[in-house]
């Protein structure tokens, strides 16, 4: 009962405030809705059933893609990562992924989507408040005028666009967990991720994907404006910069600032359950079809191309990494095969909608070989990127951004009539790609550094030595992963 007094009363007050917002959602319709006169003909279609421009196939594909991208975070990434840590931290890693599914979703609905996709404020640094609390995103109905409206984003409801993008907002910070695994304080992780999502992810997503983003190769001109193209129209189909560079580079900063795990370099710290890692990798592969294929935002040939290119890049990455191990170390490992698949998936992410699937094979091979090498960097430079979030996502993402400028082709991009990539003779695109990657790296480094420094002094970044030795499962969450005995 103490709990009810403690929590429910003050809590419910806030809830009902929110509930009222949810409810009052219906009223703005009056302002925005067209008069009923618009459709005087017999039996006008209820927009709540079939809004204008609505396409069922596109909607189906985007619903599935959203589900697939959620599945990437958990069980996908959660298993991929948690298999790589020691047994005593298995829940710590899973919890980070799972909790972020809750946390980032709510933030995205409250203000994240607005910061990323609403029209420019701050000179284009981020979006404004137009979509705050999902205003203008959710369906509305006005009892007075009997007018209902379902806001659209192309051929799908805007709320579907919102939830699809939400899944990216979840997985991106979850990728960073790989760097600070086995030692970061859970409470600090939560605060860090909120701030990181707000100040790093949302702006970059805005630059790259919002209608007038200054890095958006598919810039949508404001009617009447003389500007019809972004200053640096970078190709980033599904998030090479937005997702992989920002997270991978921030991961490196985290690894450097937090320092090594206790006992690192002395005790062996082998993956405690490679079967999980392999299952996770396979689920990531499957989910990535939604990640890249869904980034077409419709069920069209572009989505098909992205799907095929994605699959072939993953396949080629698998062979390249495992093959490199086989040649150089005598044995192909399953961790190598899985890492190669992920490297291939990362590299094709920005490119999937603008390169041929055959180029996907080439890019996958390059990524497999380069990321294989990049995972040795930490030994040379002595930082502890526990699960190689930088080695795979930072390096692979940057590589992908650049190679997209090499392999992009007009053959797969609807509406393009000019040469696209270097191989088609257009050397300018690669400049845009480098600019896009560069600014993403800069904001990731600077932003993450500032956030970590502040949080370090305010609440501390690492768990106590005692807690780290005991493992995060028991010390942070009061649980054990496996009780087999």
């Amino acid at each position: 009962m103490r709990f009810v007094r403690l929590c429910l009363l003050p809590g419910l007050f806030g809830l009902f405030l929110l509930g009222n917002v949810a409810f009052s959602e219906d009223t703005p319709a009056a302002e925005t809705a067209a008069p009923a006169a618009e459709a005087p003909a017999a039996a006008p279609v209820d927009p709540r059933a079939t809004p204008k421009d609505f396409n069922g196939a596109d909607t189906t594909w985007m619903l599935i893609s959203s589900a697939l991208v959620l599945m990437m975070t958990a069980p996908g990434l959660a298993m991929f990562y948690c298999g790589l840590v020691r047994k005593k931290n298995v829940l710590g890693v899973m919890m980070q992924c799972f909790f972020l599914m809750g946390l980032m979703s709510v933030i995205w609905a409250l203000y994240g989507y607005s910061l990323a996709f609403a029209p420019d404020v701050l000179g284009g640094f981020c979006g404004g408040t137009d979509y705050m609390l999902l205003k203008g995103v959710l369906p509305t109905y006005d009892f007075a005028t009997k007018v209902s409206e379902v806001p659209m984003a192309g051929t799908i409801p805007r709320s579907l666009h919102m939830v699809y993008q939400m899944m990216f907002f979840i997985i991106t910070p979850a990728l960073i967990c790989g760097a600070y695994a086995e030692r970061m304080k859970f409470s600090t992780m939560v605060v860090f991720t909120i701030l990181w999502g707000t100040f790093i992810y949302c702006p970059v997503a805005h630059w790259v994907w919002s209608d007038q983003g200054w890095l958006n190769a598919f810039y949508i001109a404001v009617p009447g404006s003389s500007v019809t193209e972004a200053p640096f129209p970078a190709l980033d189909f599904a998030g090479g910069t937005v997702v992989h560079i920002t997270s991978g580079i921030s991961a490196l900063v985290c690894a450097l600032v937090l320092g090594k795990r206790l006992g690192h370099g002395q005790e062996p710290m082998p993956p405690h359950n490679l079967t999980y890692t392999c299952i996770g990798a396979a689920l990531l592969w499957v989910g990535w079809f939604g990640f890249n294929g869904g980034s077409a935002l419709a069920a069209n040939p572009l989505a098909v191309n992205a799907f095929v290119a994605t699959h072939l890049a993953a396949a080629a990455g698998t062979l390249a990494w495992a093959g490199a191990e086989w040649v150089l170390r005598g044995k192909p490992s399953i961790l190598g095969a899985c890492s190669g698949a992920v490297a291939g998936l990362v590299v094709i992410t920005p490119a999937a909608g603008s390169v041929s699937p055959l180029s996907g094979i080439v890019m996958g091979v390059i990524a497999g070989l380069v990321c294989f090498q990049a995972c040795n960097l930490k030994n040379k430079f002595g930082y502890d990127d526990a699960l190689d979030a930088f080695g795979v996502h930072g390096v692979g993402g940057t590589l992908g951004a650049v190679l997209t400028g090499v392999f992009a082709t007009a053959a797969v991009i609807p509406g393009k009539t000019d040469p696209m990539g270097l191989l088609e003779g257009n050397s300018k695109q690669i400049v845009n790609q480098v600019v896009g990657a560069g600014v993403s790296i800069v904001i990731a480094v600077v932003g993450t550094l500032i956030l970590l420094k502040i949080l370090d002094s305010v609440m501390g970044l690492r768990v106590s030595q005692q807690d780290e030795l005991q493992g995060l499962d028991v010390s942070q969450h009061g649980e054990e992963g496996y009780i087999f005995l």
Partner: protein
Amino acid sequence: MKKIEAVIRHYKLEDVKNALTAAGVDGMTVTEVRGFGRQRGHKEMYRGAEYTVDFLPKVKLEIVVPDKMVREAVDTIIRVARTGQIGDGKIFVTDLSEVIRIRTGETGESAL
């Protein structure tokens, strides 16, 4: 009463159990262990990291027998568990001062 502890290879367990039973041993207790000795470990590689695994999976038997059966039990184990390759394992014999069967409270040889 003696306790025989034998560290043996995993895949020999079934054979050793059968041979000991045939030799008249009535019970034993088995533990999963990891052993380090002359047998060379192997290398494991995980991305950038390479480990030498020195502790190899073995199985430890504990067999309590009357003094007069020690010889036969030990010989049986040696005969069946041997492959001739390094890593076949060891046998340790200890004196026991008492043995009790929990179910009945019997002690000594009749407790086995």
